[in-house]
C-alpha cells in the first residue's frame, strides 16, 4: 500500500523529462506497432497500480490540494478494507501543474508506468488536452472535477464523477432570484482562456436569459489576471444588482475582494471554480455571502458520506490545519478513487488481475466502471454509457466567513 508521491520541487520537471524519454520509448515501440507496457502483465508487486494527475502547482493548485486529500483518504479507506481483494491499491500522484503541457506530460507518464486507470486531470482545460492521450492508449480516466460540456464525449475511456456545469450552475441563479426577487441588472465575468469558465458562463447566461435577465455587461478576463480595477469600474457604472462569476479560485477570489472593496454590495453568484475553501485566504472577509451551487453536502445522511466525513474530520484534527468540513472537491476525488477501486474489486473477482495484460485489464476495468452503481459521499451514483455521472442530489450554499475573515464555511441553503 502507500502513496508514491513525488516532491513538488522536481515532480513537474521530472514528469516532463521522464515523459519525453518514455514518449521517445513509446515512439520506438509504436514504430514496431507494439506497446510493451500494455502488452505485458499487470504488475502487482507493489499493489494494484492506479494513477492520478492533479494540479498541485500553478494557479489551479488550490483544487489539487483538496483533491490530493480526498484521494489519500479514499486510499486509506480502501486499503483498510482489504484493498483489491487482498492486494493493496497503489496510488501514484503526479503533479500536472495548471497548464495543458503539464497535464499531457503527467498523463503520458502515468500511462507509460502501467497504471490501470488515471484520476484527473484537475481542470477541464487540461482534460481536453490530456484525455485524448488516454483515449488513444485505452486507459480509463475518471475525472473528479471536470465540469465543462463535452468531457465524457472525448471517448469511451473517459468518464467523470463531477456533474456537468449545465446541471448545477442554473441552481445558484434560481436561488439568487429566490432570495432577492427584485434583481434586474446582472453582470457577468468569465475567463476567456479557460475551457471550464467559457463553458460555465454559457450555462449561466442561458439561465439568466431563461429568467428574463439579459446581462448589462459581459466582462472577459484571463486566468492570470489579478488586477480587475478597470473592469470593475466599468461594471459598477452600470449599477448591477447581481454579478455572476465563472472564474477559477485565485482570479475569482481576487475579483470578489476588489468588487467589494470598490463598493459593490449586491449578490454575487460564483461557479464551480470557486468551490473550494482555498478561496478564503484570497477574498478573506469579502468572501462572505457568495452563492454557489454544489454537488456535495457534508450533511448528506448516508453511511458512505458519514464514514467519509468522519475520516476527513479525524485527519484534519490530526494535522491541525485546513478546513474542518469536507470541501466538494475532496469528496469528489474520494469518490473517483472509490469508483475505480470498487470496479477493480469486481473485475478481479471475475478475472484475476494477475492473469490479464495491462491492456486487457484497462479495457475490462472501463466496462466495470460504467456498469456499476456506487454508494459514495456524493450519494448513489452511476454512469451513462457515455461516462457521464448520474447523481440525484444537488445543493446551493452560501459562504459564511468567521469573524476575522480568515476561515469560513459553505453553509447549505434550504
Amino acid at each position: 500500500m502507500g502513496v508514491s508521491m513525488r516532491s513538488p520541487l522536481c515532480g513537474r520537471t521530472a514528469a516532463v523529462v521522464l515523459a519525453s524519454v518514455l514518449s521517445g520509448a513509446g515512439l520506438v515501440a509504436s514504430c514496431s506497432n507494439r506497446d510493451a507496457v500494455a502488452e505485458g502483465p499487470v504488475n502487482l508487486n507493489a499493489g494494484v497500480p492506479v494513477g492520478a494527475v492533479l494540479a498541485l502547482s500553478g494557479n489551479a493548485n488550490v483544487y489539487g490540494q483538496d483533491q490530493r486529500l480526498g484521494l489519500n483518504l479514499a486510499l486509506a479507506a480502501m486499503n483498510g478494507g482489504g484493498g483489491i481483494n487482498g492486494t493493496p491499491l497503489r496510488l501514484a500522484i503526479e503533479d500536472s501543474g495548471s497548464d495543458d503541457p503539464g497535464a499531457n506530460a503527467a498523463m503520458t507518464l502515468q500511462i507509460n508506468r502501467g497504471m490501470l486507470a488515471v484520476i484527473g486531470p484537475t481542470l477541464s482545460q487540461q482534460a481536453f488536452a490530456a484525455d485524448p492521450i488516454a483515449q488513444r492508449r485505452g486507459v480509463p480516466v475518471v475525472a473528479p472535477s471536470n465540469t465543462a460540456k463535452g468531457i465524457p464525449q472525448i471517448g469511451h475511456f473517459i468518464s467523470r464523477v463531477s456533474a456537468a456545469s449545465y446541471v448545477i450552475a442554473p441552481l445558484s441563479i434560481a436561488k439568487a432570484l429566490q432570495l432577492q426577487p427584485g434583481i434586474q441588472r446582472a453582470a457577468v465575468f468569465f475567463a476567456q482562456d479557460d475551457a471550464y469558465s467559457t463553458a460555465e458562463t454559457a450555462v449561466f447566461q442561458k439561465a439568466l436569459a431563461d429568467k428574463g435577465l439579459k446581462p448589462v455587461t459581459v466582462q472577459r478576463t484571463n486566468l492570470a489576471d489579478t488586477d480587475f480595477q478597470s473592469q470593475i469600474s466599468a461594471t459598477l457604472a452600470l449599477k448591477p444588482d447581481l454579478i455572476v462569476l465563472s472564474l477559477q479560485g485565485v482570479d475569482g477570489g481576487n475579483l470578489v475582494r476588489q468588487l467589494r472593496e470598490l463598493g459593490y454590495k449586491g449578490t454575487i453568484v460564483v461557479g464551480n471554480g470557486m468551490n473550494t475553501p482555498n478561496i478564503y485566504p484570497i477574498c478573506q472577509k469579502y468572501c462572505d455571502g457568495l452563492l454557489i451551487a454544489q454537488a456535495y453536502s457534508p450533511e448528506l445522511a448516508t453511511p458512505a458520506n458519514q464514514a467519509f466525513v468522519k475520516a476527513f474530520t479525524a485527519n484534519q484534527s490530526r494535522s491541525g490545519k485546513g478546513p474542518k468540513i469536507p470541501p466538494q472537491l475532496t469528496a469528489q476525488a474520494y469518490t473517483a478513487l472509490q469508483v475505480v477501486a470498487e470496479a477493480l474489486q469486481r473485475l478481479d473477482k471475475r478475472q484475476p488481475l494477475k492473469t490479464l495484460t495491462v491492456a486487457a485489464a484497462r479495457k475490462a476495468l472501463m466496462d466495470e466502471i460504467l456498469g456499476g452503481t456506487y454508494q459514495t459521499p456524493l450519494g448513489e451514483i452511476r454512469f451513462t454509457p457515455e461516462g457521464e455521472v448520474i447523481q440525484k442530489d444537488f445543493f446551493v450554499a452560501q459562504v459564511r466567513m468567521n469573524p476575522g475573515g480568515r476561515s469560513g464555511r459553505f453553509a447549505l441553503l434550504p
Partner: protein
Amino acid sequence: MSDLIQLLLNGLSTGAVYALFALGYTLVFSVLGVINFAHGAVFTLGAYFTFFLIGGAAGANGLLAGFQLPVALPFALALPLAGLASAAVALGIERIAFRPLREHGADPLLALITSLGAGVVLVNLIQLLVGAESYAIPTSAMRDLPAAIRLWGGQVRTVQVVLLSVAAVLLVALSLWIDGSRSGKALRAVAEDATTAQLLGIPSGRMIQIAFGLSGFLAGIAGGLVGLSVSIAGPYFGIGYGLKGLGVLVLGGLGSISGAVLGGLIIGLAEACVPAELSGYRDVVAYGFLFVVLLLRPQGLLGKVLPTKV
C-alpha cells in the same frame, strides 16, 4: 470627466507596479548591460517575506508547513524589512550568477542564462519550502483605512493609492540619489563605462553590488505591495510581472531610469484604455503599442542611440 479620472487612476495604479518592477531591471541593465532574469523571483520572495513578517503562517504543503515567525510586525515595518531581505537575496544572485562570469570575462549574454537558472532555483525553492498554494496578506494590514476612496469623482482601492504613493516616493528618492549623491554619480559613471570608471578610482564591483542591492530592494517592496493588493498566487506569480516589466524596460529605453517610470505608466494607461468588454485582450494592446513604438523608435522612448565606435 469622471470617466477620464477613473481611467487615469486605474492606469496609474497599475502602471506604478510595472514601473517599480522595471526599475530593478533597469538598475542592473545600466551597470552590466544584461537583464537579470532572476528579478521576478526576487519580487516573489519579497511578497513571501512580507507575508511571514506580518505573522503569516505557511500552509500545509511545504517543508515549512505551519511555520510562523515568532513576531507579527505591522505592514509598514514588514515591507521595508522584506525589501532588505530581498536585497540580500539579490546580492547573493550577483555573487553566484553574475560575478563569476564577469571575473572570467565571459560573454555578458551568458549571464542571462545563469540568472534565469538562479530564478528557476529560487521559485522551486519557494515551492519546496512553503508549497504552491496561494497566500494573501490580510486586509487587516491596512488597519482602519477605508477599502476604497473617491478622488476627483473617480474611485480607487486604498491599497492602490498606497502602492502608487510608495512607488512615487521610491522613484523620487532613487532619482535624487542617482543625480545628487556622490555614490549615485559613481553608479552612473560605471553605467557609462565600467573600465574607465575603475581607472578613475571608482570601485566598479562595489557599485555593481549596490545596483543589485537596490534592484532587489525595489523588487521586494513591489512584491510586498502587490501581495497586499492582490494575493500571492503561488511561487510563479512573479513571472507575469516579469514579462510585463521586460516590456516596460524596452519601451522606456534600455537602462533609462526615467524611461522605466514613463514606460510603466504608459503601459498601465494603455491597458486601462482598453474597453472593459475587451479587457481580456489588454495584453495585446500593451504589447501592440510596444511593437509600434519600437518600430518608430527602436531605442525606446527615452533610450539613447549610442554612437558606434570604429
